[in-house]
């Protein structure tokens, strides 16, 4: 390619949380990590390569922090990297709207290294709010290059890299501002008083610089944000609005995936005949082609037609909600509940991350400083159904309760039921957090700050399109990786006999007595067990197992499924118990591995596995038996 590595120069990206640092990082490196509009998104060092004019630089995205004095893991990481690893340059990304606060970090970094380029991002947002910034003036005062950018639209980035490049060639042009600290010696001040004075000098220096640099033409530039917040966090509307937001998202997911599901299942199950004929024509032995088509292919077809559409629709919607900046408001509303459970309010954010993927929620718990509260967040994360689990809930509701009618009433009712289940799951999160903090994870809630960033208009089209494609590919890849072995497994279990019974019948029979106690049956249990690698295959496995032990040999329409379930002994109690168990059972394999990695402890991984399972068993037991009394 003709690129020569420029002796591997390393550039660090630092900045306050929520300034668009990761957007800059992604734009420069071309990595497709999603960036959300709330603090704490980047809690690891993401690394990538950035090419500029034939040279390749290593770019390191440091965690967002307000200063370099270590209080939290993020600040420690950032400070250690800049001080110890000594990158060749540091780009400090600042928010144009909040420049004064951001300069605190800039000044601290300038005290450590002079290889700094300041990147003032979100210039478009500042312009909308009629805030003008004298960039050359700022550069003159700071003594280092300052570049204005709009990372979302990739504006200003080439100039940024140019300045960084120039700073390598011309290091003496960097003349960082020297902060004048008064002489503290001999004044009899305590260590804390000296610390206070130093901080005061930094902050007032930032204030003085900004006074000349930033012009506000509209003093009440944030009035629309304040008005929106008044509504979103109001006493009367705040909570109902959160419920409504969830409801709307699920309703769009359910009604939006209806037709694609039907279409996909029509096509995919329709070509089964042709696949079979093809293999027969190839002369493949019966056992093999039945295994391939009726086993593996069917599970794949199920995942793609029934599970994929809801996943591909929910994720972009949720991403939009994140990008607008709503999630910190959710954390703001729910904080008191978390405080009552002796856990950290940031758990609201990790819980929301769990909606996308429980493993991501576990990683996201790094934003919680206290190890005790972090563990609580990790253990309870699984009570929030991930992207792979609520299609199961939706499928069960449509299959068993409402049929696959596409009427408005049916879809609204489905959305209401799913939302209520989710709220139940969130409620369990609180209950279990409280129990944990009174038993095995005793302690008091720690202090923390929650920033409510300005609302940003998301690039709706771009986010939706990119998200749908990303998610589709991700699900397809996982479907292939997980559904193929699972389909194979269930086929073998259904067709290989030990003695006079198939393995499937034996296993189901073994699990059945226990399963019946909690309102399920042996097949459902096997489906959950085999669904350990990925939750989205639970329903396909269950259907396949029922079909193997029954007489249904082909699926023309999803509506025949109700018959299948009923003929296998399902009542509405079974349906609800299955939904409850889907909500409260062990985490999937990816999540378990992630927990092990994050906690570095087998003990806590096992506890994270057991706690939701115990709650699920108890919950289903109670429900099935109490409901059974009324029938």
């Amino acid at each position: 390619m003709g690129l020569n590595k420029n002796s591997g120069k390393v550039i660090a990206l630092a900045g306050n949380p929520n300034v668009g640092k990761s957007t800059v990082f992604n734009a420069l490196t071309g990595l497709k990590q999603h960036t959300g509009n709330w603090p704490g998104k980047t809690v690891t060092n993401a690394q990538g390569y950035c090419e500029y004019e034939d040279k390749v630089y290593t770019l390191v995205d440091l965690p967002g922090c307000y200063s370099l004095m270590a209080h939290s893991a993020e600040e420690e990481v950032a400070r250690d990297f800049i001080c110890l690893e000594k990158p060749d340059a540091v780009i400090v990304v600042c928010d144009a709207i909040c420049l004064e606060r951001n300069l605190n970090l800039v000044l601290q970094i300038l005290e450590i290294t002079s290889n700094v380029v300041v990147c003032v991002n979100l210039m478009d947002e500042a312009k909308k709010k009629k805030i003008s910034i004298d960039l050359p003036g700022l550069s003159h005062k700071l003594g280092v290059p300052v570049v204005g950018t709009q990372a979302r639209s990739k504006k200003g980035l080439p100039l940024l890299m140019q300045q960084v490049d120039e700073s390598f060639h011309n290091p003496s042009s960097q003349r960082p501002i020297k902060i004048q600290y008064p002489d503290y010696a001999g004044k009899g001040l305590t260590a804390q008083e000296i610390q206070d004075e130093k901080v005061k000098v930094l902050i007032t220096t930032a204030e003085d610089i900004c006074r000349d640099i930033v012009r506000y033409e509209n003093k009440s530039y944030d009035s629309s944000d304040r008005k929106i917040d008044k509504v979103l966090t109001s006493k009367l509307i705040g909570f109902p609005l959160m419920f409504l937001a969830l409801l709307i998202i699920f309703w769009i997911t359910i009604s939006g995936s209806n037709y694609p599901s039907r279409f996909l299942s029509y096509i995919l199950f329709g070509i089964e005949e042709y696949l079979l004929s093809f293999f027969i024509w190839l002369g493949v032995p019966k056992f093999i082609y039945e295994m391939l088509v009726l086993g593996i292919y069917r599970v794949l077809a199920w995942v793609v037609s029934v599970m994929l559409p809801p996943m591909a629709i929910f994720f972009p919607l949720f991403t939009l909600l994140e990008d607008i900046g709503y999630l910190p408001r959710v954390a703001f509303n729910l904080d008191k509940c978390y405080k009552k459970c002796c856990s950290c309010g940031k758990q609201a954010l990790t819980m929301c991350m769990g909606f996308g993927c429980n493993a991501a929620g576990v990683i996201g718990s790094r934003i919680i400083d206290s190890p005790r509260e972090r563990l609580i967040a990790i253990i309870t994360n699984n009570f929030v159904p991930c992207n792979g689990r609520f299609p199961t809930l939706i499928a069960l509701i449509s299959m068993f309760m409402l049929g696959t009618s596409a009427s408005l009433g049916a879809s609204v009712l489905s959305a209401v039921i799913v939302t209520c289940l989710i709220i139940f799951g969130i409620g369990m999160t609180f209950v279990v957090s409280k129990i944990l903090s009174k038993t095995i994870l005793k302690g008091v809630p720690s202090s923390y700050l929650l920033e409510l960033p300005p609302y940003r208009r998301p690039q709706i089209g771009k986010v939706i399109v990119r998200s749908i494609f990303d998610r589709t590919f991700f699900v397809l890849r996982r479907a292939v990786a997980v559904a193929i072995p699972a389909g194979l497994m269930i086929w073998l279990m259904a067709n290989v006999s030990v003695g006079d019974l198939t393995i499937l019948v034996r296993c189901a029979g073994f699990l059945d007595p226990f399963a019946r106690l909690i309102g399920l049956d042996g097949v459902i249990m096997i489906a959950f067990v085999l669904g350990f690698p990925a939750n989205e295959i639970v329903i396909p496995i269950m259907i396949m197992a029922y079909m193997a032990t029954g007489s249904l040999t082909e699926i023309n329409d999803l509506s025949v499924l109700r018959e299948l379930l009923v003929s296998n002994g399902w009542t509405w109690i079974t349906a609800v118990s299955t939904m409850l168990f889907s909500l409260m059972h062990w985490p999937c394999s990816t999540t378990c591995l992630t927990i092990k990695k994050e906690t570095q402890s087998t003990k806590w991984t096992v506890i994270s596995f057991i706690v939701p399972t115990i709650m699920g068993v108890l919950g289903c037991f109670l429900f099935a038996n109490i409901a059974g009394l009324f029938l």
Partner: protein
Amino acid sequence: MSGIDCLTNLEPGRCAVVNDLTVTGSMRRRLQDIGLIKGTRVEYVQRSPLGDPVAYLIRGAVIALRSEDSDCVMINRVN
């Protein structure tokens, strides 16, 4: 009402100036880093529906503080 009081008692919509921080250690540093030093102007923005935390406007940013933490920020009310 004049005199020094803690931030928790600041009424909705009112402004105040920070006088002192009574907490020490890392929380003190954290509050200072977001700009809560003596002489900083603070404005009450919004209360959470359950009463706690409360969001304040501090040096151009809106930050929510729990009552245990705003108890430690001593202020003088201004008009």
